[in-house]
Each structure stands twice: as structure tokens, then as C-alpha cells.
């Protein structure tokens, strides 16, 4: 009985649903015309809530900037020459000025020691031709590469620009994170939807599989998947696709649990029963009726997984099971930084670490705002 349900805490319901006496059709039409402008779908309303959230908007801008950088690097507009050895080995960041660089000096000293010091031209049969060769050398433009002493954010051991490396690394890391999260969430959603919708023995089978799968320690699971994929001659050369497959195939469990719970909740709802009553098929009820109502959960899980998989990729690459040797990711950069730190070259660590920390923080806060905005208070 409705009189009873007078809510004590009027949230949006009071404003959205004036549950007063119904009006005759003519009045209703007027009222409807007034409200036409405000006629909003669930997504539209979520967008409005998102716009009001300051943290959400700032973090969204950060995330979008990262994605723009990734896109730029993907199409080769920026950082395409990341492998060029433009600086001296371990060139220091510009803002530090020219600090003493023992690694670079050591290389130069080796070269200088190779010059002739003893005059042996009278016994040297080649002596008459030295001049000729010197002239010819002068004519050909051998162009000794002038290596920069400093680079904007320093250089690595081979003199590659750390900033460009970090940008290229961002491309790989973020792509791996996004793609793996997508794979994981699609698998999790499909399995969760089937298990939660049909229940019964199907659910039991899925639950058993899930329980066994999650009983294996996560890192061990990833490592064993990675090892298997590496051993396969076809997959071993698939580049980042291998690591996406590894992360996606191991990471579906949390999405599965969430989606299954949502489906169990929704399948008993009256609107799903009503769909059954009008003759909608199982497929239609699962994916046309229930899925849009569970989509906010899936979307939030997706963004949480992106963060988790960016971190997982870093760990895998750090352990040497990540991206191939001719590619760079934040993980490989951190892996290199391990040995550099001992000799006091910290900039590669800072570049990769800061790039990742800012993105992960922004993405996590963005996810929180997204969840707040999507949480449908509309019943």
C-alpha cells in the first residue's frame, strides 16, 4: 500500500516523481509539455551528474590527455623516433644542467686512446696514401653524430630520449590495459550472465570452475599462462597480443562475480517477469532487458580492470615476461631502472613511475566519479 511508503529521505524521487493525485488527460498533456525539455534517459542523467562532479571532470581531462598522447604515438605523430640514440649515454635531464657524466666520459676516453702516438711514417708502406685517404674522407660526409649532453628528461644507457620512451611506453601499457580489460570484462560478462540467468546446474558448473580458478595464486596463474603462451611457437611472436591474452584470460573472475550477482538480482525483478509474460526469448531477456540495467556495474568494473591491468603489465614486464624486447613499456623501463639506480641515474624510474602513478590515480578517481554518476537512484 502506497501511503505507507512515504519516504523519510526524499532523494531524487520526490523531485522526479510527483506522486500526487493523477490529473485528467488534458492536464497531463500540459504537464507533459512542460516536462518535455527535461525528458532524459538514464545515461543523460548520469552525464549531468558527472558534469557537476569537479573531481570527476578534472580526472577525466587527465585521462583524455593520456589517451590523446597514446593516439598521437599510435599514429606516429609523436615519439615515433624513440629508438634514435640522440643523447650521450645517460645524458642528464636539462633542468639539472651538465652534471658530471662518468659513463659518457668513459666512452670518449676509449676513443681518444686509439689515436697514433708514435711516428712510424718512414717504415709504413701505406704512408704515401694517408693523405689521399684523408682527402677522400673529408669529401664524404661521414658526419660524426653530435650527441647531446643533456636531454629534456635525460637519456638511457644507449642515449635514447627518456621522455619519448615514456610516451611510447604509455602507448603500449595503456593499450595493453584497455584491451586486456575489455577481453576480461567480455568473458566475465558472458559467463556471469549465463550463470546468473539460468542458475541451476549451469550455475553450479560455472561456480565450480570459478572456485578452482581463483584458488590458484594470481601471480602464479599469470606466470603459468605466460609460460604456456611463450612455449607456443605461434603465440610467442604475437607481441603484445600475448600479454593481452594472458591478462584477459586470467582477469575475468571479478567481472564474472559482479555480473552474475546482478543477473541473479534482476532476473527476479518484475520487469523481467513481465518480459517473459509478453513472450520475450531468453536471449532477449538476458541481453536486451537485463544487460542495459547491469551496464553501469560492468562499466565501472571495466575501468577498475584497466587500472589493475596497467599495473599487472608493469609487473609482468618487470619480471621479463612482458612485452617483446623491441618494444618499450612502463614495465620494461622500470625493469631497466633497477640497474641504473645503483649508479645514480634515477630519471628513467621517475619518468615511467610518475607517468603511471598520475594515470592510475586519475583513472581510479575518475572511476569513483563514474560509479557515483551511474548509480541509478531511479527505481
Amino acid at each position, binding site marked *: 500500500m502506497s501511503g505507507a511508503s512515504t519516504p523519510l529521505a*526524499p532523494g531524487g524521487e520526490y523531485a522526479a516523481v510527483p506522486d500526487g493525485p493523477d490529473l485528467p488527460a488534458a492536464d497531463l498533456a500540459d504537464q507533459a509539455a512542460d516536462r518535455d525539455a527535461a525528458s532524459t534517459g538514464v545515461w543523460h542523467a548520469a552525464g549531468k551528474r558527472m558534469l557537476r562532479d569537479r573531481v570527476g571532470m578534472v580526472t577525466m581531462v587527465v585521462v583524455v590527455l593520456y589517451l590523446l598522447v597514446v593516439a598521437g604515438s599510435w599514429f606516429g605523430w609523436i615519439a615515433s623516433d624513440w629508438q634514435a640514440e640522440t643523447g650521450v649515454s645517460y645524458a642528464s635531464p636539462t633542468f639539472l644542467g651538465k652534471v658530471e657524466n662518468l659513463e659518457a666520459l668513459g666512452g670518449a676516453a676509449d676513443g681518444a686512446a686509439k689515436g697514433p702516438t708514435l711516428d712510424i711514417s718512414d717504415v709504413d708502406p701505406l704512408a704515401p696514401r694517408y693523405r689521399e685517404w684523408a682527402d677522400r674522407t673529408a669529401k664524404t660526409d661521414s658526419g660524426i653524430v653530435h650527441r647531446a649532453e643533456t636531454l629534456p628528461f635525460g637519456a638511457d644507457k644507449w642515449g635514447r630520449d627518456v621522455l619519448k620512451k615514456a610516451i611510447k611506453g604509455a602507448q603500449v601499457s595503456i593499450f595493453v590495459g584497455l584491451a586486456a580489460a575489455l577481453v576480461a570484462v567480455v568473458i566475465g560478462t558472458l559467463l556471469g550472465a549465463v550463470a546468473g540467468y539460468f542458475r541451476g546446474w549451469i550455475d553450479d558448473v560455472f561456480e565450480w570452475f570459478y572456485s578452482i580458478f581463483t584458488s590458484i595464486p594470481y601471480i602464479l596463474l599469470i606466470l603459468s599462462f605466460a609460460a604456456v603462451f611463450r612455449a607456443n611457437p605461434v603465440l610467442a611472436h604475437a607481441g603484445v597480443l600475448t600479454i593481452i591474452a594472458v591478462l584477459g584470460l586470467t582477469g575475468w573472475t571479478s567481472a564474472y562475480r559482479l555480473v552474475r550477482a546482478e543477473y541473479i538480482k534482476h532476473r527476479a525483478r*518484475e520487469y523481467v517477469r*513481465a518480459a517473459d509474460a509478453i513472450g520475450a526469448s531468453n536471449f532477449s531477456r538476458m541481453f536486451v532487458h537485463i544487460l542495459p540495467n547491469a551496464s553501469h556495474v560492468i562499466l565501472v568494473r571495466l575501468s577498475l580492470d584497466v587500472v589493475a591491468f596497467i599495473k599487472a603489465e608493469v609487473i609482468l614486464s618487470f619480471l621479463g615476461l612482458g612485452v617483446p624486447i623491441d618494444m618499450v613499456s612502463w614495465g620494461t623501463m622500470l625493469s631497466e631502472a633497477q640497474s641504473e639506480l645503483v649508479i645514480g641515474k634515477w630519471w628513467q624510474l621517475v619518468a615511467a613511475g610518475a607517468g603511471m602513478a598520475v594515470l592510475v590515480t586519475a583513472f581510479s578517481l575518475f572511476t569513483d566519479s563514474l560509479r557515483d554518476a551511474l548509480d541509478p537512484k531511479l527505481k
Partner: protein
Amino acid sequence: MTNPSRNPRAADGTLLSIQDLHVDFAVGRNKVFHAVKGVSFDVPPNRTIAVVGESGSGKSVTAMAILRLLPDNAKVSGTIRFDGRDLAHEPMSSIKRMRGNDISVIFQEPMTSLNPVFTVGDQIAETLSLHAGLRGQALRQRVVELVDEVGIPDAARAIGRYPHELSGGQQQRVMIAIAIACNPRLLIADEPTTALDVTIQKQILDLVARLKREHAMSVLFITHDLRVVGEFADEVVVMQSGEVRERGTVGEIFGAARHPYTQALLACRPPLEHRPARLPIVADFLSGRVAGAHVLDAVPDRLPRPDGPVVLEVKRLSKSFKVKRGLFGSVEVPAVKEVSFTLRRGRTLGLVGESGSGKTTVGLSVMRLHDASAGEVWFEGRDLMTLSRNELTSMRRRLQIVFQNPYASLNPRFTVGQILLEPMRIHRIEADDAARLRVATTLLKRVGLPESALNKYPHEFSGGQRQRIAIARCLTMKPEVLICDESVSALDVSVQAQVLNLLLDLQDEFGLAYLFISHDLAVVRYISDDVMVMNRGEVVEIADSDTIYRSPQNPYTQRLLASIPRGYEAAKPSLAA
């Protein structure tokens, strides 16, 4: 015997006096919702004051403002004088001392108001040790006394039970025991019987009335149901949209209501004595088209509909659920036992019963929304129980169901247009979407909604409007049988009358047969030609509406009908006696 407490003039002074109370809720960043707008009324000692209103009238908010039980975004102004103190300006610490001690509250849902991990004895004892400082044997003694006083049998053992081991009525008795533990002077009862069956409701109301006399306390009774009030209250405050519409003694309100809204509330509920052809709606009263609370007496009675051909025949339908027992075992618990009935074209069969009687299970089994354990359902010469899934889908459109909760039965992510078009697409009714859209528009208008509703989402409509959308969705398939499962139970009195009128009109127009399932005996009385009464899964009585309500044969039916609150008229004889 004249009951002196029913005469309001006998009282002097007031216990609680609310003057010009305003409650505003901050909604969003800079929107304010005015829930209560300048409400004033008094509660004298030893009186029952009923605050009556529909959802959104501000009745509960007013009551909760007294003990500051409102959420943080509420802003209260005005004076609430209790016993010479202004509660609106008392510090929170002294309000907390008064809660449960001078003023106590009982809520609508006893199940959620009790803590599931403590025994009921512990929960009653908590209040006593907090406010009365009782300990040890004296405390236990008092708890047993209280449980006994609120009428729970075998009190000494009952205090060791957990809330889930008690029935809904007993849980509410425990809530009442907690409320009266410290002999409060004011008991605020916020819809205490709404979640309960009608027979239990009567027991609880009798209990509250008895305790009020014995403890010499005042009761502030919040309800949406004027009929409950008539038998029970001394004075009535009628609220609508946060304002007091009318205030008076129960005799004045029921005998000579002045405000059109009060008259409407009295007249829009279907009467039990006869079956008027139509129910008036609130808008009629407010616009002045109709006046007076007794307009229904003048409306001619609706004649029983002629006997049409049988469209649905149910034979010995049974359904049992498996309940796990022990580690591996399970027991079959019968929910419906051998139910048989026939439904005729253009007629309505009412199905009444209390919760757990199996009435909803019958509806769902007939639709095969879950599978029955045994029995036959004959529709157009075929037994629905034996049809395959594909055959069933084509049959489905001829049998439709309108659910109880209009907030849950429409997919929140679909527009009204999508909701109405979907069944026509599934069953390939009409040639293309343009034609389907025309049908949808016509039906929307038929149920009283504008065309612009097509592009809106369900949350933009009120409960009554959503229920009409649900009805329109069923009509798109041109069904022959419509099962209404508590379809008007969640609606306010005024909206309920509109939907009932609509259902009757549609029946006349399309010759629909209704299976009308409800726990609300007055609504079933109004809409049904025949009535079937169920108790514990069995049909106890089936007859035409007039016969059942005028001379019930089965003892259970008699008890059920005797429990219906009959309003002030029923209470009058006891006054005169």
C-alpha cells in the same frame, strides 16, 4: 457504555502542540523540497490523534520531526511544544533522553526495525536498562511481563527467540513492547499495520487501543487508510501536499467532512455494502464537480455481468516448492493445493487471501511463469500445462498479467514507446513499426496518457501512470484474459479509484476476463463478479460477490470479513450501546 475517552471535550491542556511546522529538504545543490508547509495541531493527553494522508502528504515527515528522526538534509522550523518544552530548539542530548522514554515510535516494517542478530528479549531489555536502569532478575521479570502484555503466548520462552522465528504480527508486537517499555506519554505509530494482513491488523489495532487505555498515553497514529482511523481515533488531521486540509473529531470528519479532499478520500475507497457503477476520483471533488462524502450512496449499483462463454478453466492446479532440509534432504512444501475454477468472458473472478495463501502462485502458474506441480489449465481447447515453449509463446499474448509494483514492472532503460512496441514486434502484430506506433499511441490515449509519453522513461511517471503503461502494454497484444496480481495495491486511494475505473471500462470495451488477485477485500468486492477465497493454498469458498460478502459460509471467510476496518459507522453502535 459511553467511553469517555472518545469525547475530546473532556480533555484539558495539551501534551504535544505543533505550531506552524515547516520541514524543507535540500535536494541537489540548490533545490529545496518543501515537505511540510506550516502544519499546526495539538495532541491532548489520553487521546488518539490520527494523521491521514496519501504518499507525499508529509504525514510521516511531520511525525519524525517531533523526535528529530529526519535525515541530515532536513531543515525544521516552527515550534513543537511537548510538556512545556520546545523540542524544535532542545539540544540533541535531551531529545535522545526523551526517545523511548517520554515519546516512543513504532514503524511500518517490523522485520527491518528489529535487529536480526539479537533475541527479542535482548532488544526489549536494552531500552529498559538504558532508560529505567533495570538489571538482572528485575530486568528479566519486566521483559517477560511486557511480552506477555502485548499478547505473545508463552512469554518466558518467546524472549529467547530471534526476530526471524516470529511472524510479522508477533514482530510488530515486540516493537510495541519495546515502545511501551518505559511507559511513554506519547506513542507515535507510523503506519504500524500497513505491512500486515487484515486479520493481524485488527489484532494489532486492538492491542494499541488497549495499551493506550491501560497506560494512559496519547497515540499519534499515522496512516493512509481513513477506514482504520474511523474505528480507532478520537481526532483526525487530514494532510495533503504538506498542508493540513481538515482537522476535527472523528465524528465530524466522517459525519460532515467540509473539505473536498477529505470528502474525496472517504468516497474514493470502494464501499463494502454495495457495488456502485463507478468510483468518483479526487479530481472530481477538487474541481467541485462532485461534493459530499456520501455521493456513492446515490450512484446506481453495477449489475453482475451476463454469463459469457468459459475462456479459462483451471482443474486441480497444485504447486509445491522444494525446501532444503538437513545436508542433502529436501521437503516438498505445498503452496497451492488442487485449485479449480473457471473464468468467463467479460467477467471478473476475484481471488482473495492473506499473505502465504498461494493466490499469487495461482496467477503465476496459470501464466506458466513458473511451472505447476500438477493440474490442467484449459484455454481455447488446449491444456497450457502441456504446451512446449514455442507453442506457449504464441498463447502468451492471449493471457496477460499486470504486476503489483508499477515501479518494478517496467524496464527503466526502455522508453515507453519501446515498452509498448516490444510485445507487438515479438508477436508480429501489425505490419511495420509505423503501424505499431499508431496502435501504441491509441492505447496510450485510451489509458489516459498523452502521446508525448512515448519518448519518456518510466521514472518520469507517477505510480498510477506507470500502472496504466503496464496495462497498455498488455492491451497491445489484445489478450482475452488479464491477470491482475495486486495491481492496485501499491497505489494511493485516489489513483486506485482511477485505475479501477479504467479496468472496468476496458472490460466493457474489449470483453476481457479478469483474474483479480488482491489482499484488499474492499477492492475485490468492488471489481469482482465472483470471488474465490484462499487460505493456506486451498480454496475455502467460491461464490458470487454479493453472496460471499453478505453471507459468508466458511468460518475463515467470516473471520476475514469481520477484520476489515469498516470506518466510523461500524464503530458507532459501540458508542451508542
